[in-house]
């Protein structure tokens, strides 16, 4: 009751929005705040800066130092060493990342951001990790929020949020160059340069390029040689901050990527994929008398071609405008109010009958309150109103009309967390989260194909009446520090439900039967519910003489509750079968003088997946596997480092997924930081 009364009292004071004070406009200076508090700082939990250890949501942070020591050439490899992260590696340049299970090809459950700007591909809600416009050298930290957080971030933030935070050109003078070569004829080059024009303008430019031979297909005749392509990627980005006045800051972020890869699509077909992305964002930040006011507008464009999957050419454009105020309304309470508008559109393909689009209006509010010196509470809520539409016309033989797209979807998201700091070394957290996984544009109508049969064709389409999935997470966490042994760890127990689970069109049955003049139809549909219980345990620490270690273990148990008559396998939605129950990681590192050495051991238990096939889907077992990664580095000078790293050192070839067998990889890199 005391907590409720405290929150209500704070909420009633929200309308006053006073007590802010005039001063210099500042984007969040992560570096100074981290130095001050001697621990990572995050804004991904509530939108307000706070210590990661006191965040009201379960999260992990990968630091720039972790990234530098990782020996990785991509982000999924680094993420896969965390508790609760599943990585499906389809080829040398293609992976999908899942948080706490439910991972699949082109998984649409995860929200990936760069500095708060979405970088997942909105057409199907997936993340093309090879097409992210960010170089490893310019990343300050990667913040991984487990569980739904759509009350803060909106759609897609249901299994988790991965926010990639780059160095801020105003505060961080980061300059780096890296040249890497390796097996599979890997070649990569990165360049990051920060420029300053007095105190007025600060910019950072990054450029990157990489290529590799694709893994060899030794086992699977269903993966056609014509569907395999050597991955390559190019990216360029600009991040500029201008101090317009003492109170006002402007930030311009522009990026461009182009990549080619071979990958797996949700119905387990192997295909070449080419993509182009472009993004522009302008933000204004004002440290005003009523708090930190922020306005931003950005546009993402993507062009994606699935070469061997119906030659789909998807052109997707997203426009997002947002205003927000973040204010400490009294000594105990911080409030964030925001309003967001989103316009999202894409063409219908491979049968191009028009374009599907929606407009979303989303008010949201967050309040974090210090109840006592040991207890804090956070509540956040967001309402999304999505207005769907279709611009175009369907042929008369298709059982769809544009009128069916005149639809409004309303969805409510919520997060609540209570943090109890029992002692200096013990923090307990209980949290509740309700996330909304909106149907993607492809699921709503962007996908439209036809399967030719002997006497007729079957339409495969998006479904304008599909419902959003609702993911609800209940969690209890315990964070423990053991300063006596320079160690810390956590234990997290969670229970998660997903209603209105979405499935892709199943060729095992018709959704609409043929009429005298119209073709039969199958489409994306809701297929039932599922729930998951799980735990994550992790620990890390430092040992004398430069040694460090970390270990984690994750258990997840997914149970399906299909709708009557629904064959989950046919819809590629048997998540109980496709989620590994056990994953574990062990890391050991050492730094002495100019030498640094690290090793990581990863284990994923067996699971089932849908083998690549052009026939009806079925499940087959993927054996559990372990892989050993390592890196040894030597500092040639204060700015120059030479490193050799290896992935999957324990085996030349491991079947980790239904994609290509993953090969051992060795890299040699020369990097400069100044």
């Amino acid at each position, binding site marked *: 009751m005391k907590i409720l009364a405290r929150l209500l009292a704070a909420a009633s004071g929200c309308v006053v929005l006073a007590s802010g004070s*005039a001063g210099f406009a*500042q984007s969040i200076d992560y570096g100074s705040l981290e130095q001050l508090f*001697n621990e990572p700082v995050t804004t991904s939990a509530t939108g307000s800066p706070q210590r990661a250890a006191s965040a009201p949501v379960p999260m992990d942070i990968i630091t720039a130092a972790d990234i530098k020591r990782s020996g990785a050439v991509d982000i999924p490899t680094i993420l896969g060493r965390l508790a609760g992260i599943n990585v499906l590696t389809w080829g040398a340049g293609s992976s999908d990342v899942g948080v706490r299970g439910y991972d699949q090809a082109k998984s649409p459950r995860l929200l990936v951001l760069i500095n708060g700007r979405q970088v997942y591909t909105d057409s199907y809600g997936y993340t093309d990790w090879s097409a992210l416009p960010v170089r490893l050298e310019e990343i300050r930290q990667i913040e991984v929020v487990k569980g739904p957080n759509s009350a803060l971030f909106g759609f897609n933030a249901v299994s988790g949020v991965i926010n990639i935070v780059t160095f801020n050109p105003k505060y961080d003078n980061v300059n780096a160059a890296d040249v890497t070569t390796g097996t599979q004829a890997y070649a990569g080059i990165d360049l990051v340069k920060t420029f300053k024009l007095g105190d007025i303008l600060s910019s950072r430019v990054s450029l990157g390029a990489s290529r590799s031979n694709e893994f060899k297909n030794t086992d699977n005749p269903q993966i056609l040689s014509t569907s395999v392509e050597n991955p390559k990627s190019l990216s360029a980005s600009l991040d500029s901050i201008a101090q317009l006045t003492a109170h006002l800051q402007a930030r311009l972020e522009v990026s461009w990527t182009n990549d080619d890869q071979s990958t797996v699509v949700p119905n387990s077909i192997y295909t070449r994929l080419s993509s182009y992305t472009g993004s522009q964002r302008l933000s204004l930040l004002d440290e005003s008398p009523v708090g*930190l006011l922020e306005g931003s507008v950005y546009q993402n464009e993507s062009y994606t071609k699935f070469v061997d999957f119906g030659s789909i050419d998807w052109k997707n454009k997203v426009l997002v405008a947002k205003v927000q105020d973040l204010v*400490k309304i009294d000594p105990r309470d911080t409030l964030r109010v925001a309003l967001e508008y989103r316009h999202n559109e894409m063409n219908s393909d491979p049968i191009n009958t028009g374009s599907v689009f929606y407009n979303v209006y989303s008010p949201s509010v967050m309040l974090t309150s210090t109840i006592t010196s040991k207890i804090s509470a956070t509540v956040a809520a967001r309402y999304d109103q999505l207005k769907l539409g279709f611009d175009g016309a369907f042929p008369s033989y298709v059982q769809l009309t544009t009128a069916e797209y005149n639809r409004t979807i309303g969805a409510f998201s919520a997060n609540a967390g209570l943090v109890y700091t029992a002692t*200096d070394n013990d923090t307990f957290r209980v949290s509740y989260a309700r996330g909304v996984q909106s149907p993607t544009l492809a699921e709503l109508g962007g996908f439209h194909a036809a399967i030719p049969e002997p006497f007729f064709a079957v339409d495969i389409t998006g479904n304008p009446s599909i419902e959003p999935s609702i993911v609800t997470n209940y969690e209890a966490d315990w964070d*423990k520090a*053991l300063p*006596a042994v320079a160690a810390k760890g956590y234990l997290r127990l969670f229970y998660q439900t997903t209603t209105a689970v979405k499935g892709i069109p199943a060729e095992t049955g018709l959704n609409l039967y043929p009429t005298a003049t119209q073709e039969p139809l199958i489409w994306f549909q809701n297929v039932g519910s599922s729930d998951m219980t799980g735990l994550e345990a992790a620990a890390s620490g430092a040992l004398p003489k430069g040694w460090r270690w970390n270990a984690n273990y994750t258990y997840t148990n997914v149970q399906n509750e299909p709708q009557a008559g629904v064959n989950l396998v046919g819809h590629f939605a048997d998540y109980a079968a496709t989620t590994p129950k056990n994953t574990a990681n062990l890391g050991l590192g050492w730094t002495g003088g100019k030498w640094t050495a690290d090793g990581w051991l990863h284990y994923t238990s067996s699971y089932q997946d849908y083998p690549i096939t052009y026939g009806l889907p079925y499940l087959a077992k993927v054996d559990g596997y372990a892989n050993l990664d390592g890196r040894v580095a030597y500092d040639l000078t204060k700015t120059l480092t030479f490193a050799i790293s290896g992935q999957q050192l324990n085996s030349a070839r491991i079947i980790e997924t239904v994609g290509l067998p993953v090969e051992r990889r060795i890299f040699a890199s020369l990097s400069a930081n100044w």
Partner: protein
Amino acid sequence: MKFRMRWAWIGFPLIVSQLALPAHADTSKDVQVAGRALSFLENGPSGRVVIGVVYDPSKASSVAQKDAVMAALGSGLDAGSLTLTGKPMEVGAISGGVAALYLTGGVNFAAAAASAKAHKLITISADSACVNSGDCVMGVTTTPKVEIKVNRAAAAAIGVSFKSAFRMMITEI
């Protein structure tokens, strides 16, 4: 026996949670964090700044802490964007020309606060009692973890305020 083993893990967290060590103050870290916190003042100092280290010569503990602070500051202690140097001051000799005052334990906080207010100087201490009473603007401790507490009334009295992001991460009273 099987039942006991199965449920024994419940007791494990309780045992481990008792392993916390007692806290020990670290003057050097306290001063450095205090200096870093000054960079979050609106219109705050920059570059090389002098901190007045206020002590009571009649109290050995105060003198010892003053010596420790001065030793930590040395010829210049880097604290974020600031480089801190120190100037010892007795309570009765507080004067301007410094960016802030660091009050050692044992000094007469009220008397020091009155002088500081007259010179519009921000007062900092590792003793939370000084902040709670309103004699200090800011309290800083670093062991076992960094804790910063700001007395808003004391800050307002000398006309200083902190940046929003900083305020959201500290304790205000």
